[in-house]
């Protein structure tokens, strides 16, 4: 299962971050490195969408309906989380601080 692999990698990273095992250069530039790695991943994800002929074919036909459904799902999810956000974050200090 992928979930297990993700969890192991996250925990490995967390251990290294927690124990501060990175060297100075990596430690100082980790934010930039992460950003560039992220843009690379997003670029590859974009290619994955564009290279699939079905996505482009169907998007022309049902794209409008799909976007309506996706946007409504997203907006309602945000509103629902907003309802409980205070009860979760007030108990946990540090959440509002800039990380």
């Amino acid at each position, binding site marked *: 299962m992928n979930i297990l692999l993700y969890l192991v990698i996250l925990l490995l990273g967390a251990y290294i971050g927690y124990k501060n095992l990175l060297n100075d250069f990596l430690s100082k530039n980790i934010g930039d490195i992460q950003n560039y790695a992220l843009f690379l991943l997003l670029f590859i994800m974009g290619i994955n969408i564009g290279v699939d002929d079905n996505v482009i074919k169907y998007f022309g036909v*049902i794209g409008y309906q799909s976007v309506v459904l996706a946007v409504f799902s997203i907006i309602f999810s945000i509103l629902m989380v907003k309802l409980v956000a205070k009860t979760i974050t007030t108990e946990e200090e540090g959440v509002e601080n800039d990380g």
Partner: protein
Amino acid sequence: MTGRIILSVALGIIIGIFVFPQAAEAYMGIMIDIGLCLLLFFVGIDIGKQGNILKKIKKMGFKVLLVPLMVAIGSISGAILGGLLLGLPINEAGAIGAGFGWYSLSAIELSKHSAELGALAFITNISREVIALISIPFIAKYIGRLEAIAPAGATAMDTTLPVISRSTDGNIAVIAFITGVALSSLVPILVPTLMIILK
């Protein structure tokens, strides 16, 4: 951040359409997996730097699970409402919403009913993932950090987690991962169930 995210995805889509042959699709999965593992490692470092997060999570306890619960309710009810505007049956719209952005699984599940419904689930949930990637930094900044998990849905444990982590902090990244895992486990149960009970 949002501008550069849009640029990266858009550039990829354009190159995917015009440069890469369809045959390249076979290699995309592994490329994404490698990239994702690298980024999740970085997310892990962010989480570790925050100190003892396990303690904080324990303090929050079961309240953490309110986030996936609320995202599930919001996604399904939102899709049903959007579906009503489009004239879709309630059970079909609800089931598509219960894909929570996991497009491959929801599409496979719903193509058992009809190819059209499978295609709609596929494109809707891809759209959700792309809109999530673009909107998360904006939501984190102007609406709230916890709310930034909401658009991601099931993808909060993988593809959108790096964006959430970059836009918020290690604490929220942990809650996002838990939310993604919880929602992902619900997809295979809720999608077929909603097709039946909302009929």
